[in-house]
């Protein structure tokens, strides 16, 4: 109990006024002494003083100079003193925390959780949404198109969201606002063979590795300003002649992983989808492409696309849109002016080449004009997809931090109360209040900083956990999460905020202590004094606040979990639990038109023969696999008011499709085997389409024109949600796959099984390959897994919010326990007296419990309206759950009440077991 500040015996008054006075006094002393000496030599007093002043010289100048010097000196001293104080405070804080390791440990643990959760969330947000690409001057980059469309391939009418190769060259050559414009597009699955003989020796596609690749134009690296770590990047000329540049650049990470960073990898030939390519270079370390969340392992010149994907002529067709475009602004050109110029150019290029689709395209461009945005942060599918999930998570972790702060503030209050006497003595000895507040705050700061440091570790683990949850599997979303400066700065900001939140009020309260009464109690904490100072009410207020926030989180948790539950079991209109889907890349395997139709029939027959398979069919588009086709139709007896009235989604399907997928046929018949190449053109439409085009009459027997073919409607099928559980069903048209003018590039085989479809996945792959071993079967999945994948984010959010809700619940229960234990221990004497006067232990337990429940219920009552209001914020995430959800509220109330009762039970039990005599003696 020593005041470390007593090194200086007296407090020196510092400050400008004081310095001037000292200097004046010193000069006056000199002149007085000199005067005295001169008088002693015989001069009269007046002359002597005049002589003394003259001998001194310009006293005003001397004074000024001395004051200046002293001011500098005093500043330096003050700073040194402050630093010294701070060092002392830190040492003091560390010492006093070490005397109480349990307290320090608990506070640090709680803070680490709270701050760690926030840092983890922020680091994911930083990586996905804030951080610029690691390229030269990312701020000068602009994207053309939808930055989310990283994996899109659109065949048919061109669109503004993603570009065809001819559109790219128009924009590249026609603009004057960019110094360069590159395009990059998806490669689909690549079969790469390393260390093998050249392609010619190996007929047909070979199963190999499947690194992630992108087709890029020759100026990709030069526009981004990314150099080579080894070898070279592409030359701008390496996209002039189709098929002429069999070269690849690989990423530094892939180089390390696959070639162990061997310089000899440069110049080696690898086989991609059967064609030989020479590795010419390794891109700069840290550069994994222009897409955040989907790192590339290798880049292939765009003009090699027809070589890598034979049968897919994507370079020449304006109807195949598959490129993301990124340009670099010319010096002095603003994003705004580039937007105008590029938008005009793109619109013109699209319309000039639209031909018969011009009017439709005009409407489409009106609805979705060209998108030109800043490209500094690159493209990302995940950025947009996770925005709302990350928002919900941020809200949840922020609330957890508030609960954490309330909890720790409560602990600090109790600690300050316990040290009341020590502080009073120090105030009595003359310690300044600000100085004491500073010291107590330093203690909070030491806790917050240690807590944050541990929090960074929690965050390191937590951000990976978030990304792993987000990916819905063991492999996290490959986002480069780092504890870089923004993250550290964020954490530091949190620590400072936390320090103030947990330390300021307790520190101010503790130092308000009035000296006399504290000393009077002779070091024993006085309950009466505490109550009078209002410490308990503040503590109780903090407990109520924690309860209210927990209520908020628990209600949110309940709603999200119930919503996810409903999503997971929603009726999507097909047999979601029994389907297997196999993707066949028919064109890549060399099947077109008649050969493909034969393949379809053969595969259906083979699949049907697998034991356990109840029904089989095929379709061009998959189910929950993200492909979709759209077209425009003219409907007999229907006049479109706007162009978009003619737009429908369509799919071309095999015989028995509706039966196979378990869709509900409402009227007429489905597609059957008799609807073959030569048969009459028939179509089945869904319920929504039938209602839209034929609101009064019967759709059956009517005709619609699509793809310049007239189809007769033979059936109406129930609506199904086949891409997203949440989607509202579109108008949808089904036609026989064998009646299509152009056979699709790829198709899916759908199999309905009797039992768990996952068991048959391997058997299906074997059966399909038995038809043709060189067939490219890109994916065989059970539908439940695909649906699960589509709900990944919902699981992520529900799991994470549940986790945070549990933390908040535990913390507030601990807070309640703490406050009740403290309150009952203060009232030992009272309980003893009650017992002595004949109170039953049960009555005492009830009394304590009811006090605790009053706090809990106050929290619940306060939290309820806030929870209902806050659930508006997550409305977009909810599926078939209203914003006022009684079951969630009921569960939250019950969980909170039970936790509160449990938290209060131990203190209550202790209160009831007080021995009357001991209690009275203790007081």
């Amino acid at each position, binding site marked *: 109990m020593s005041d470390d500040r007593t090194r200086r015996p007296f407090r020196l008054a510092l400050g400008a006024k004081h310095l001037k006075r*000292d*200097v004046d*006094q*010193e*000069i006056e*002393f*000199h002149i*007085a*002494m*000199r005067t*005295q*000496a001169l008088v002693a030599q015989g001069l009269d007093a007046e002359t002597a003083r005049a002589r003394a002043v003259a*001998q*001194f*010289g*310009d*006293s005003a*100048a*001397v004074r000024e*100079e*001395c004051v200046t*010097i*002293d001011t*500098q*000196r005093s500043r*330096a001293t003050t700073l040194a003193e402050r630093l010294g104080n701070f060092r002392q405070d830190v040492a003091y804080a560390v010492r006093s925390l070490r005397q109480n390791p349990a307290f320090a440990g608990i506070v640090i643990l709680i803070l680490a959780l709270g701050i760690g959760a926030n840092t983890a969330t922020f680091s994911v947000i930083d990586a996905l949404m804030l951080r610029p690409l690691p390229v030269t001057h990312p701020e000068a980059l602009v994207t053309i198109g939808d930055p989310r469309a990283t994996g899109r391939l659109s065949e048919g009418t061109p669109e503004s969201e993603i570009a065809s190769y001819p559109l790219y060259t128009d924009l590249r050559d026609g603009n004057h606002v960019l110094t360069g414009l590159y395009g990059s597009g998806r490669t689909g699955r690549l079969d790469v063979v390393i260390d093998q003989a050249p392609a010619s020796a190996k007929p047909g596609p070979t199963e190999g590795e499947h690194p992630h690749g992108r087709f890029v134009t020759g100026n990709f690296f030069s526009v981004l300003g990314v150099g080579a770590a080894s070898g070279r990047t592409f030359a701008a000329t390496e996209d002039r002649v189709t098929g002429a540049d069999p070269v690849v650049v690989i990423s530094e990470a892939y180089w390390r992983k696959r070639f162990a960073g061997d310089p000899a990898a440069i110049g080696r030939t690898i086989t991609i989808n059967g064609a030989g390519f020479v590795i010419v270079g390794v891109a700069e370390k840290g550069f994994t492409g222009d897409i955040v969340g989907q790192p590339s392992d290798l880049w292939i010149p765009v003009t090699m696309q027809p070589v890598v994907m034979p049968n897919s002529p994507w370079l020449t067709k304006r109807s195949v849109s598959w490129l993301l475009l990124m340009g670099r602004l010319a010096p002095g050109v603003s994003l705004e002016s580039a937007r105008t110029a590029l938008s005009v150019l793109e619109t013109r290029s699209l319309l000039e080449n639209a031909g018969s689709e011009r009017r439709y395209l005009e409407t489409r461009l009106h609805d979705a004009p060209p998108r030109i945005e800043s490209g500094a942060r690159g493209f990302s599918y995940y950025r947009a997809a996770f925005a709302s999930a990350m928002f919900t998570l941020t809200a949840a972790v922020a609330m957890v931090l508030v609960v954490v702060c309330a909890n720790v503030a409560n602990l600090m209050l109790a600690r300050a109360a316990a040290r009341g006497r020590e502080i009073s003595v120090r105030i009595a000895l003359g310690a300044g209040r600000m100085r004491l507040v500073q010291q107590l705050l330093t203690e909070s700061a030491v806790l917050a900083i240690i807590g944050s440091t541990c929090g960074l570790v929690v965050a390191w683990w937590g951000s990976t956990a978030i990304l792993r949850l987000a990916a819905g599997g063991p492999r996290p979303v490959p986002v480069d999460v780092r504890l870089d400066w923004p993250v550290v700065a964020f954490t530091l900001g949190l620590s400072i905020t936390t320090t103030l939140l947990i330390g300021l009020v307790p520190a101010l309260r503790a130092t308000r202590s009035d000296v006399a009464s504290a000393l009077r109690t002779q070091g024993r904490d006085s309950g009466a004094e505490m109550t009078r100072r209002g410490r308990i009410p503040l503590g109780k207020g903090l407990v109520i606040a924690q309860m209210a926030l927990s209520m908020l989180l628990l209600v949110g948790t309940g709603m999200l979990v119930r919503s996810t539950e409903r999503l997971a079991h929603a009726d999507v209109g097909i047999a979601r639990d029994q389907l297997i889907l196999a993707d066949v890349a028919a064109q890549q395997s060399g099947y077109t038109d008649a050969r493909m139709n034969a393949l379809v029939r053969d595969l259906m027959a083979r699949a049907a023969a697998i034991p356990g398979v109840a029904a089989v069919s095929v379709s061009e588009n998959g189910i929950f696999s993200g492909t979709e086709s759209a077209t425009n139709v003219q409907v007999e007896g229907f006049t479109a008011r706007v162009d978009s009235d003619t737009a429908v989604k369509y799919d071309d399907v095999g015989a028995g499709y509706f039966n196979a997928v378990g869709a509900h046929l409402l009227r007429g018949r489905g597609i059957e085997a008799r609807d073959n190449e030569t048969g009459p053109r028939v179509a089945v439409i869904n319920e929504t389409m039938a209602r839209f085009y034929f609101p009064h009459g019967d759709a059956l027997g009517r005709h619609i024109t699509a793809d310049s073919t007239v189809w007769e409607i033979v059936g109406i099928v129930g609506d199904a949600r086949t891409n997203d559980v949440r989607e509202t069903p579109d108008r949808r048209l089904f036609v026989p796959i064998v009646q299509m003018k152009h056979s699709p590039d790829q198709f899916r085989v759908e199999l309905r099984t009797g039992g768990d479809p996952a068991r048959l996945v391997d058997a299906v792959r074997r059966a399909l390959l038995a038809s043709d071993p060189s067939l490219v079967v890109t994916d065989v999945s059970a539908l439940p897994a695909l649906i699960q994948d589509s709900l990944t984010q919902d699981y992520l959010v529900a799991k994470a919010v549940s986790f945070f809700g549990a933390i908040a619940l535990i913390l507030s229960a601990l807070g309640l326990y703490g406050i009740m234990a403290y309150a009952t221990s203060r009232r030992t004497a009272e309980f003893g007296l009650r017992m002595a006067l004949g109170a039953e232990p049960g009555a005492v337990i009830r009394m304590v419990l009811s006090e605790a429940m009053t706090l809990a219920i106050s929290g619940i009552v306060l939290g309820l309206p806030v929870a209902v209001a806050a659930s508006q914020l997550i409305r977009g995430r909810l599926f078939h759950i209203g914003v006022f959800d009684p079951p969630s509220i009921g569960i939250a109330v019950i969980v909170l009440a039970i936790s509160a009762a449990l938290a209060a039970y131990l203190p209550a039990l202790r209160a009831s077991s007080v021995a009357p005599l001991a209690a009275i003696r203790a007081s």
Partner: protein
Amino acid sequence: MDDLDVNLTRGTLDLLILKALSWGPRHGYAVSDWIGQATGSALQLGEGTLYPALHRLERQQLVVAEWGLSENNRHAKYYRLSAGGRRRLQTGVSSWHRFVEAAASALRATAPVPAA
């Protein structure tokens, strides 16, 4: 001596102050008195000039100042050497002697030897 234009440099004044304090704490007046006597009043400087020098030495922590009572019971600011000040005095004295010798021998020199 009077017609010579030899200015007292700041370094020399600092050195004299440190020397004045080398026998124990003194206030500014006493330092000024000692310098006057010790130099036989040869260095004509305004007595006030001393004070900025003293304060500067204090800022450099070569001297330490404390208020105390003077011989005639007045409040006076006393200066004493710090350990650093004492070291500075030693090094200062020897380098001052080297300087004076060098300057003196230069001033004694005869006509320069013409360059060959």
